[in-house]
């Protein structure tokens, strides 16, 4: 399968599953609620996944450790988040810091 075919297949399957996940509660009329434990697992999932993505996308590349300018960019992002900046500035600040570090070193 080519990269383009993989991308289209991911889009198709991603769209179908997203539609089903969003539609399930409304179609079953809601009313029912998840068990407390199941609800806790669902609330904890984003923390586990987002953290995994932040770290691998910051210090890894192609399956190996690769510490580069992105680390500086993420430090700036963390500072901006701590200063309660809007997500717009967090994203722009991280990109700008990474770009400047690449220009300098």
């Amino acid at each position, binding site marked *: 399968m080519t990269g383009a075919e993989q991308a289209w297949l*991911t889009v198709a399957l991603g769209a179908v599953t*997203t539609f089903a996940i969003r539609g*399930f509660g409304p179609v079953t009329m809601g009313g029912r609620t998840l068990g407390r434990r199941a609800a806790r697992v669902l609330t904890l999932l984003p923390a586990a*996944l*987002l*953290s995994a993505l932040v770290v691998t996308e910051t210090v890894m590349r192609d399956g190996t450790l690769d510490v580069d300018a992105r680390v500086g960019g993420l430090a700036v992002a963390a500072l901006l988040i701590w200063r309660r900046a809007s997500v717009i500035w967090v*994203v722009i600040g991280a990109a700008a810091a990474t770009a400047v570090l690449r220009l300098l070193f």
Partner: protein
Amino acid sequence: MNVTTLRTSPVARAGARAAVPFALAGFVVAISFGISARAAGMPAAAAIVMSAIMYAGAAQFAAVAILAQGGSVVAAVLAAMLMNGRYFAMGLALGPSLKGGRVRRAIEGQTLVDASWAMANRGDGRFDRHTLFGSSAPQYVAWLSGTIIGVIAGSALPNPEALGIDAVFPAFFLALLVSELRTAEASAVAVGGAIVAVVLGLLAPAGIGILAAAVIALVGLRPVREAPTEPEA
């Protein structure tokens, strides 16, 4: 959902106005999504169609990140599904507040995104449909138009990494992550997820580390003492 009703509904219009700050942030993030998707080798049309029919930023980023790392389609779709798992719980809460038959309710449920769900939540277990639709509309327009601009910019830029575009993904995720760290348990899960992802990222095929990190969330299954006075949300 009737477009005319929506247009004339003051509640929907108020919801749309309240969602403008979220739509602006989403617009910038969508631009970075479009650029990153192109940098990951995704066809321009696929990235645009993805935003148009998935309309789920974190899930889209996760899927594209795994494809970019050389992961399989199955791993990418599974990561997107897990990331969307919160919509399952949010949809159950939303269900009783929607109207109509099954098809219409399923379609109304597609307007569910994090910010619109939060704004429509009246705090008494009910949700305001018009606020949900009204606040979702500008966010959808921003997400789709931002993706289109990002895809065009990504195709025109010779070297997006010189602009630090590869730092946008993790910075956006970090902002989302911090908003999830409301409890000590969530923070511990985040640390565990990061360790699992890096270790398996070095040892296992691409994408497996991210999926394995999700398993850490199963600590939520352990029994806890319930707070006796806490009312049912």
